[in-house]
């Protein structure tokens, strides 16, 4: 059962590792996830196995490059999803971050994409400003 309640204040301004941890918690369908910055550098991964992370990282960048090159001229890709019998890979680019995830067979695509977008937005969003406590007015003497 999904127990996610999108609350902008609670997810805004979190770092990439925290966002990936939260993504893995809220989505039971996602088996692995990875986050990149705008330059394609890996910021965080759900996997503790460096080889698995490297494979997912390479596949993500390769998928985005292949998707961009379809058609007559290269275009900026915002989402790639490949669903196969053995599982699926989703890549979502939102703002300055790209989030990719693998799932098992027959995932609920809409939910997975929504979760990836939420994850990317959480990293992009600026941290909420702390409000200063008002000083009590000094009594005029």
């Amino acid at each position, binding site marked *: 059962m999904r127990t996610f309640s999108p609350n902008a204040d609670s997810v805004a301004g979190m770092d990439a590792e925290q966002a990936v941890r939260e993504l893995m918690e809220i989505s039971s369908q996602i088996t692995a996830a990875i986050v990149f910055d705008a330059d394609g550098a890996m910021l965080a991964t759900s996997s503790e196995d460096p080889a698995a992370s490297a494979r997912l990282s390479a*596949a993500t960048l390769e998928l985005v490059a292949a998707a961009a090159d379809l058609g007559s001229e290269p*275009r900026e890709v915002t989402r790639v999803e490949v669903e196969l019998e053995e599982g699926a890979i989703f890549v979502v680019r939102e703002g300055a971050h790209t989030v990719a995830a693998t799932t098992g067979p027959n995932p609920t695509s809409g939910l997975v994409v929504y979760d990836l977008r939420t994850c990317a937005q959480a990293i992009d969003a600026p941290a909420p400003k702390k409000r200063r406590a008002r000083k009590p007015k000094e009594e005029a003497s």
Partner: protein
Amino acid sequence: MRKLIRLAVLTGLAVWAWRRFFRSTGSLERAGISYADGSAVVLDPGSAAFERLASIARTTLRQ
């Protein structure tokens, strides 16, 4: 009791017939891409573009 058994058998037959004759038998494999300009494409299995993306995805999913 007989009526109940008959109803259960008929329900089972109906479910089997539905799955046998009406369920889609097509491949569930597919790929989709969205672009920043708002356009999107859905790639069907068998197309060269689908096979290219699928081969990249398979290497990761099978390991």
